[in-house]
Structure formats: structure tokens, C-alpha cells
């Protein structure tokens, strides 16, 4: 059990390590004072700690008692006498409080109810969803503007172009964000009821991915696919933004557009469906349901 006398060489090593640590610590303080780069700061601090730690490790491993030491484990199982005494202590108390039979359950009911209602203030954390998830800032006649609030004309975009847009008055809005792509008139195949939603080939869809809400920012212009980079949900722009790859299950809601008298793009109503990721109360789509367009 006793160790061999510590070799002087080991003691020298530990000394060297501690002195290195000391010097590095001072260097750190100096480096900090002269506003050195964080590479110098990290190096000095790192060496100071590593050397100190290594010195302590060597000290403990080579110069301190190694044992092996043996210790008995405590017996975690109680003896029958101890168990009986503990049970007796509990039962005698129970007997004292249990004399009135009704008090126990009443207490449980009152305490339980109090415990429940102190959770009620959680309702103050935020509003109930209500209809918030079903509407955005888009209205009939709302002008289409870019991220700087500038109105977008129908001839700004060329075929193959893409732009992020918002309703006037709700610039940079999280739920009203829209991505507009322009395709050639010849390739348009609008679904029933949406024949005039895309003037001049301008298709406008919600930019909020219906999977988990990231902005659907990638537009693959030659195959007319909008892609979300978070989980690679892909939507076919020519087929009402139906999902064609990835985990999205619902198409991107479409915004009906028209061109006003001055050549600016305006909306004809809100999106065709609620935007964004799904939720419990989301109704399955009805074939005849068209929102917004007149």
C-alpha cells in the first residue's frame, strides 16, 4: 500500500508544468491588457489551464498515494427492525391525523384544486389562436410591394424571374410574405377556378413553407420548382404549388393577382388556404372552396 519514494524527475516535471502555467497566466493578463487577438488570448489561457491541469494530474498519479484502498459499501437494505420502526413511525402519525375520516379527502380536494388553479395564469402568456392562423394582411386591392415597400409593376419581372413581396402596409410581415415567379403564358395550366389568378404569367404563392414554416426561397427556374432549404420540400409552381419532393404534404397557398389601371400588381383577396405549417384545427380542403377571388 505504501508508494515508492517519489522520483525527483517527476517532481521536476510537475514543477515545470506549474511554472509554465504561471507564466502563461501572466501572459494572458498582459495580452488582455494590450488587446491582443483572441488567438493569443485563447493560446495563453489554454496553456495556463492545460499546464496546471496536467501538473495536478501527474502529481496525483505519481506522487500521491495510489492504494489500492478498499472501502465497505453501506448496506442499503434496511434491517427488519429498522423497517418496522420506520413503518411504525409513519403509521402512528397516520393514525393521529386519520381520526376524522372526512378531513383527509377534503384536504386532498382543496389542495388539489388549488394546485390546479395556480396554473391558470399560464393563460396570460399569450392570446388564443382564434382565426389568426387563417388570415394574413392581404386584402382585395392591396398593392404588391417589395421588401423596401416599393410597388411592383407587372413588367418588372421577366419570364424566369422571382421576387419576394408583401402587401402594402404589411412590409416584411412574417405571415403575409409572398414569392412571385413569372412564367411564360404558354406553360400556364391553372387549376379550375384559378384561371385568372396569374396575369401575365405572374404566379404568387405564400413563401411560408407548409411543412415547418421556413421561407421557400429557392426557385429552380427551368423546371418551375420552388424549394425550401430546411428539409428540401419542393413545390411545382405550374401545378398550384403541389408538393413534389420532401416532407411537405400541402401545397403552398396561392394569392390571386391582377394588374391595376397603372400597371401595378395588386391582390384580389387573401390566400387560397391558411398559410404556413399545419395545426390540429386545420380543415381538410374542400374542392369547391375558393377564398378571396371574386
Amino acid at each position, binding site marked *: 500500500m505504501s508508494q515508492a519514494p517519489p522520483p525527483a524527475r517527476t517532481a521536476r516535471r510537475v514543477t515545470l508544468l506549474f511554472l509554465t502555467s504561471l507564466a502563461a497566466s501572466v501572459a494572458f493578463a498582459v495580452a488582455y491588457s494590450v488587446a491582443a487577438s483572441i488567438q493569443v488570448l485563447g493560446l495563453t489561457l489554454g496553456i495556463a489551464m492545460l499546464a496546471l491541469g496536467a501538473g495536478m494530474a501527474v502529481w496525483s*498519479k505519481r506522487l500521491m498515494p*495510489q492504494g489500492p484502498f478498499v472501502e465497505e459499501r453501506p448496506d442499503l437494505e434496511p434491517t427488519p427492525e429498522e423497517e418496522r420502526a420506520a413503518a411504525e413511525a409513519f403509521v402512528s402519525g397516520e393514525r393521529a391525523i386519520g381520526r376524522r375520516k372526512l378531513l383527509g379527502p377534503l384536504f386532498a380536494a382543496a389542495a388539489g384544486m388549488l394546485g390546479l388553479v395556480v396554473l391558470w395564469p399560464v393563460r396570460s402568456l399569450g392570446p388564443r389562436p382564434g382565426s389568426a392562423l387563417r388570415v394574413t394582411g392581404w386584402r382585395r386591392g392591396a398593392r404588391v410591394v417589395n421588401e423596401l415597400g416599393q410597388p411592383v409593376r407587372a413588367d*418588372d419581372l421577366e419570364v424566369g*424571374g422571382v421576387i419576394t413581396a408583401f402587401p402594402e402596409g404589411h412590409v416584411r410581415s412574417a405571415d403575409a410574405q409572398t414569392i412571385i415567379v413569372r412564367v411564360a403564358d404558354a406553360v400556364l395550366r391553372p387549376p379550375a377556378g384559378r384561371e385568372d389568378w396569374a396575369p401575365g404569367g405572374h404566379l404568387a404563392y405564400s413563401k411560408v413553407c407548409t411543412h415547418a414554416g421556413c421561407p421557400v426561397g429557392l426557385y429552380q*427556374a427551368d423546371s418551375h420548382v420552388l*424549394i425550401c432549404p430546411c428539409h428540401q420540400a419542393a413545390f411545382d409552381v405550374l401545378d398550384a404549388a403541389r408538393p413534389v419532393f420532401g416532407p411537405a404534404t400541402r401545397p403552398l397557398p396561392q394569392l390571386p393577382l391582377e394588374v391595376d389601371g397603372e400597371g401595378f400588381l395588386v391582390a384580389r383577396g387573401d390566400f387560397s388556404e391558411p398559410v404556413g405549417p399545419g395545426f390540429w384545427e386545420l380543415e381538410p380542403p374542400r374542392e369547391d372552396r375558393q377564398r378571396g377571388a371574386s
Partner: protein
Amino acid sequence: MSRCGTRWSQRPADRFRALRGLVVWGGLAGLIIAVMAGGVRAPAAGQQPDPQAVQLYRANCSFCHGVDGAGTFQGPPLVGVGRASVDFYLRSGRMPIDDPDEPVTRQEPKFSDEEIRKLVDYAGAFGAGPPLPALDLAGADLARGEQLYQLNCAACHNWDGKGGALVGVLAPPLHAVPPVQLAEAIRIGPGPMPVFPPDVLDDQELNEVVAYTEYLKDPYDAGGYGLAHWGPATEGLAGVVGLVMLLLVTFWLGKRASAGRR
């Protein structure tokens, strides 16, 4: 008055009529010839097409893109693609390709600088299209460029310009692309890339976004080694390496204690 017995040249009225006819009909014919000649595409700057450019085009491009860029079933028409487009595709080595099914990717250019210039002049004149962009990066507002880049480019090309995954294709990395080609690509929208015309990104904004993309080729890594700028993907690997190093430290700490202790 009788014309018998006299020669045409001796009769003043006939001489006048002949002269008038010559002027009128000659002028008319000359006008028609001039109009027809002017209708044929005149080369830029009023010169004849460079014979070397014509020969290059015929040998390398016309098989797929057709005579005068009219297009064939193998390749799209080049009418109206503009000088920017021709310059982009030739300088980035994407064109010419041997096989229409070959993927169009960045490679070493197949032509010399001089040959490209001639082809740009020739094929770029197949109808009006985006001109060669005139960049002025000095003094461009990097902060405005950052905002434009994040909104318009980062979704496909990544915040560091490392490229991105699309459906079936990859958006290429931007680090090896010269600024003029960046600008050309933005203006023409090659392949799967959308097009950003001047009404969407005006010339000053083009300068700004190209300037920021240039900055991304050597961005400020204040924190030390940049770990290939792939974000948490490579940071996680480095974290695991750091952890493994510490696990090895415990191996040193614990192992020595048990060595020869039985």
C-alpha cells in the same frame, strides 16, 4: 408632231421623257435594292460579320443552335440572349458541349479570349438582349449588398457562396467566379437560375450584390480557423474531435492508475 425621220437624240421632248424615266425608275429600283440590302442583318458598327466569328460559330455552335441562332431540336434559339449570355456561357466554359444531354457545368473555357470576343460580337447580335454588364465595384455599399445577397442569393448559393442542393441539380459555388460572370449570371439567369432584370435589381444594386459576393471569397474570420464555412455541420465534427481528445485525456488519467496494480 411626227417622230418619223428624226433620231431620238434630236427630239428634246423625248430626251426629257427618257431622262425622267431613268431617274424615276432608277431611283425606285435603287431604293428597293437598298431597303432589301438593309433588311439583311448588318453586323455591329455597320461592319461585315467577322469571317473568323462566322467560321467559329458554324463549326462549334450551329449544329445545335442553328443558323443565325434560330435553334434546332437539339438546342435552344440564341436570338435575343444578348452579349451577356454568350460571354457568360463561353467564359465559364459551360459551352460548347458535345452532346445536348451533357450536364452544363463550369469548366475551362474552350476558346481564347480573342475568339470569345468575336463570338460575343457575332452571336450576341442575334437580336437585342442583355448587354455586357458594366460593373463599378469601387465604393459599392457592402451592407446593402449583404441584405440583397441574403434575400436573393443565399437561399440557393448559401450564406458563404458554397452552393446548395436543388431537385436534381446543384447550385454551384461562387468562389471561383469572376465578378463579370457573377453579374452576367444575375442578368441572364442561366439554366435553373432565375433571372434578375434591371427592374428587380438596378445597376447600383447589381454592383452592391456582386461586391458582397466578392467579399465572401475571403470573409472576415474573426474567430480563428473558419472550418470550411459550413456552419454547424463542420462545427459539430470539430466539437466531436475536441471531445475525443478529452476522452483520450481520461484514458491517460485512468489507465496509468490501473496499470500493474493487480
